[in-house]
């Protein structure tokens, strides 16, 4: 179908189809939940319109067969989702929206640049043909440039390390169903792009894979670290999304390293993406319920609210366990797959005799962040459902279960993702996943998690002072770069005008009416020595007429004659 001036092509093959279905499911659940959530919210019409628009765009992104179509829907998705973010127009929301839009637009532009370079290099943007189109240019700088640009674009949406700043800010302010979708599906769109780059364009390129792994590791650890220290319910979940994206990036990195041969890596990545979407849908829904009733999200306020709400506790527990990768849950399976793929690569590299210490480090970070995940999830669970609120009367208020905290529809709807996760866990209940080596990995991370949880239990951790965006990005960009460029531009603009003004002031100055032009004669006449000269002339004239002057001149003339003639 040719639309927008070029042919748009769509496909439902493989991952495209899978994720399209996932998108539909996610949207169904969140819309159903938001019926109740939005009940007493303002601008409902605007909310539902843009939710549907975002759904369309996201579906388009997943189903598109060539990168150009992907980009088209990608942009639409960015803008429509922006409206969701700033839905309740609070000051925080506006500022977060601003950051979100800036990152989205910058990411979009850089990705477009990547597309240009790629199109110029290979001549085609069809995803299917990309693999063999990029093969001849394997190591060339232009391919790397294109890939980097596209990675920046997709990475920004996915929330990878350098451009993750908008995620922790955007989700808390967005309405719960929206933030569920944001972290569930939209990040997956980013990952979808990253997947194409790594597994289609640069499959098997060590340098590229190493970079991806590095980014993945950093994101993984950073996300988890931030999550542990956040004191807001939704902010923790957002940071956990960042961390989970880190896990998936590592998976992609491994897949790219092994040139798509390692089946475990690719299966693990896909499975983990699915798991993460469902988990975030579940957890954010729970957070939504909490916000729906209390309109507060800070952990200190919400503490102890869920003590007498067993159903909510169950849902939250399922989510927490899956995300921490406790054996038996689908989370465990995907994490183990990823972990095993790393171990497999290490052995292979050891076998080939290359340096392996880097991958070993990666494995350890994998395990530690797994532990951290378990730590903050359990902290949430304990805070929400186990511990009592510090203030007695608040706790009493929470306890008396007079009105239902969520109606039947939303309860059943939230149940769906939980059920889906459990059955995935069940489907993969084959034995070989539970061999000792696999179990050892997850148990070590759980142990670390438990240890940390004990350490931090009871203490209220304060917010991290350091915030990458406010300290680094905004000052560099707004205070440094923009004024500099603005200065250059104003000099350039002013060039023409100042030149003309300088000319008119100096060389071409117009002689105003009745302005006396300087005339040398008048000046001379006015001078003092002019009168003096007049008198001198009168005396000279009088003397000139006297006889003596005549004789003097005659004598002088005679002398000149004689001297001159005698000489020659």
């Amino acid at each position, binding site marked *: 179908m040719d639309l927008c001036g070029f042919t748009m092509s769509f496909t439902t093959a493989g991952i495209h189809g899978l994720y399209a279905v996932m998108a539909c499911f996610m949207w169904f659940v969140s819309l159903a939940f938001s019926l109740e959530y939005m009940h007493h919210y303002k601008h409902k019409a605007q909310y539902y319109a843009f939710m549907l628009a975002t759904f369309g765009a996201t579906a388009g992104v997943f189903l598109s067969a060539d990168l150009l179509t992907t980009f088209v829907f990608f942009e639409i998705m960015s803008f429509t989702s922006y409206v969701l973010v700033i839905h309740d127009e609070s000051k925080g929301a506006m500022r977060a929206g601003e950051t979100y839009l800036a990152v989205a637009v910058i990411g979009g532009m850089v990705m477009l640049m990547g597309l240009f370079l790629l199109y110029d290099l290979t001549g085609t943007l069809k995803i299917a043909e990309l693999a063999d189109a990029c093969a001849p240019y394997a190591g060339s700088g232009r391919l790397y440039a294109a890939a980097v640009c596209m990675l920046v674009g997709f990475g920004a949406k996915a929330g990878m390390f350098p451009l993750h700043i908008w995620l922790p800010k955007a989700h808390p302010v967005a309405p719960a169903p929206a933030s569920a979708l944001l972290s569930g599906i939209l990040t997956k769109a980013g990952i979808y792009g990253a997947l194409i780059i790594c597994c289609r364009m640069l499959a098997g390129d060590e340098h590229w894979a190493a970079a991806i792994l590095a980014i993945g590791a950093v994101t993984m650890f950073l996300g988890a670290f931030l999550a542990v220290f956040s004191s807001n319910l939704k902010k923790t979940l957002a940071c956990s999304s960042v961390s989970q994206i880190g896990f998936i990036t590592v998976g992609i990195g491994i897949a790219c390293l092994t040139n798509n041969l390692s089946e475990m890596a690719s299966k693990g990545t896909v499975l983990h993406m699915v798991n993460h979407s469902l988990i975030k849908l579940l957890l954010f829904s729970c957070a939504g319920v909490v916000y729906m009733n209390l309109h507060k999200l800070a952990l200190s306020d919400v503490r102890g609210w869920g003590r007498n709400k067993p159903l909510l506790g169950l849902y939250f527990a399922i989510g927490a366990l899956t995300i921490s990768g406790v054996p038996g849950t689908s989370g465990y399976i995907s994490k183990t797959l990823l972990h095993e793929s790393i171990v497999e690569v290490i052995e292979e590299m050891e076998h080939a005799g290359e340096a392996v210490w880097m991958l070993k480090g990666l494995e350890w970070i994998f395990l530690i962040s797994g532990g951290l995940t378990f730590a903050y999830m359990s902290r949430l669970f304990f805070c929400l459902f186990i511990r009592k609120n510090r203030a007695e009367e608040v706790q009493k208020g929470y306890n008396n279960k007079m009105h239902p905290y969520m109606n039947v529809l939303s309860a059943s709807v939230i149940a769906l993702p939980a059920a889906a996760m459990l059955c995935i866990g069940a489907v993969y209940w084959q034995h070989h996943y539970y061999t000792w080596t696999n179990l050892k990995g997850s148990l070590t991370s759980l142990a670390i998690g438990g240890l940390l949880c004990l350490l931090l239990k009871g203490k209220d951790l304060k917010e991290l002072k350091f915030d990458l965006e406010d300290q680094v990005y905004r000052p560099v960009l707004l205070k440094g770069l923009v004024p500099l460029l603005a200065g250059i531009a104003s000099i350039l603009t002013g060039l023409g005008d100042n030149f003309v003004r300088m000319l008119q002031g100096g*060389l*071409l*100055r*117009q*002689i*105003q*009416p009745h302005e006396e032009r300087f005339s040398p004669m008048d000046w001379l006449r006015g001078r003092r020595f002019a009168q003096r000269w007049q008198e001198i002339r009168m005396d000279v004239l009088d003397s000139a007429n006297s006889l003596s002057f005549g004789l003097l001149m005659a004598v002088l003339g005679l002398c000149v004659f004689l001297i001159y003639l005698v000489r020659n």
Partner: protein
Amino acid sequence: MNGIGILIAIAIPILGGAFVPLLDFGSRRARESYVMAIVLAASVYTLSLLASGQGTSFVLYHLTSTIDITFRIDRYGSIFALLVSVLWPLASLYAFEYMSHLHKKNRFFGFYTMCFGITLGVAFAGNFITMYLFYELLTLVTVPLITHEGTREAKVAGVKYLVYSIAGATAAFIGMIAVLSHGGSLEFDVIGLGSAATPENRRLFDLAFLFMFFGFGVKSAVWPLHGWLPTAGVAPTPVTALLHAVAVVKSGVFAIGRVVYFTYDAGYLDGSFVQKVGLLFSAFTIIYGTVMAWKEMHFKKRLAYSTVSNLSYIVFAFLLVTPSGLEAGLLHMIFHGVMKIALFFVAGAVMHQSGRIYVTELRGFGKAMPVSIAVFTVASLALTGIPPLCGFLSKFAIAEAAVEESTPFAYFGIAALLISAIFTAAYLLTICIRAYFPPADFEPWSLKSVKEANWYMTLPLVLLAAAIILLGCFPGPLMRFIGGVVPAAFPGL
């Protein structure tokens, strides 16, 4: 029609003019009809001469063995005569109205009409001496016209004009005699120096050329010697319009054309040092003239400086010493004459009706004097070089000739042309803007006293505007008439 016709054509205005101060006319009407009769007779007769008498020559008097006063109608001279005889009746008609409130009309119209005859003399001169004679007489006759108003300023302008012209004429005279005494021929039908241009006296001929170039350059306002033209702006408008835009200055340029094409020939001058000097000076004057015109806020002084620059257009074209250069120069001579006289007439009309002489005081005149300002706009568009009008044609022809020459000096000339076009737009169109679009807070009643000039003044204006437009769109016949010069000036081709 033997040569005597030329003498009659020249004699009618000179004698007619001479009698004007002597006869005492009953009324203004009588004098005007007499003067107009004389001028019309002379111009009609001249035009008939141009049509029929091409090539006839007439020796009036043998001054010495080698020098005599001869008249000849050749194509080059007849172009200048055509311009003058067409514009003089218009200028006279204009002058009747303009001079209505000035004193000493008899004397003014006497000299004014004599000047017509003398200019025709310059045009029809057969050799250098005759042209020099009429050239000098032209100076003497125009001095009283400049000092007509008798104010101190006018006297200073008159003396300055006299000094410049006499100096120029003498320098030219010396150059002429140098050429004559070294074997060059002063007759205009003998082209070039021929055998006389031997290598050893080449330096002397160069010096003679420079003397003549700067001698006649005074009248054609080449840069260092242009001082008199702006100061002569104080003269009454018919004088500045006709003399300092058409007759006097054009005779200077006409004489330079004679020197370049008829005394020296293309073979001698092409690529020579003197040509470079000439091109350089004229190109610089083009720029100098327009820049000064932009700086000057006095209406007539601004137009005078614009004349300084436009004259150097013609000098530059002549000095390219190619057939297309000659044609371009002549074309601009005619077109500039028509355009500039229109501009001066408008300046005169504004001054006559409202007494305003500075450019900044012309706000809102578009409504007060619609016809004059409309003609002014047409003329300034033409002078700026907007295509359909005639100014563009001559500018294009000059640029084409310069491009054909393709030497660094020629390119400097083109650059000068363009810069001057920009400045012309600057100093003329801003006046039109002020006149037509006064600011919102402008009270129209302040111009209530200013009315459009009567038909004496507006008729010439309208005719000139029509001429500008017609010459711009249908220059065919005129360009063919000018084309006839090339075989005369370039016998080889």
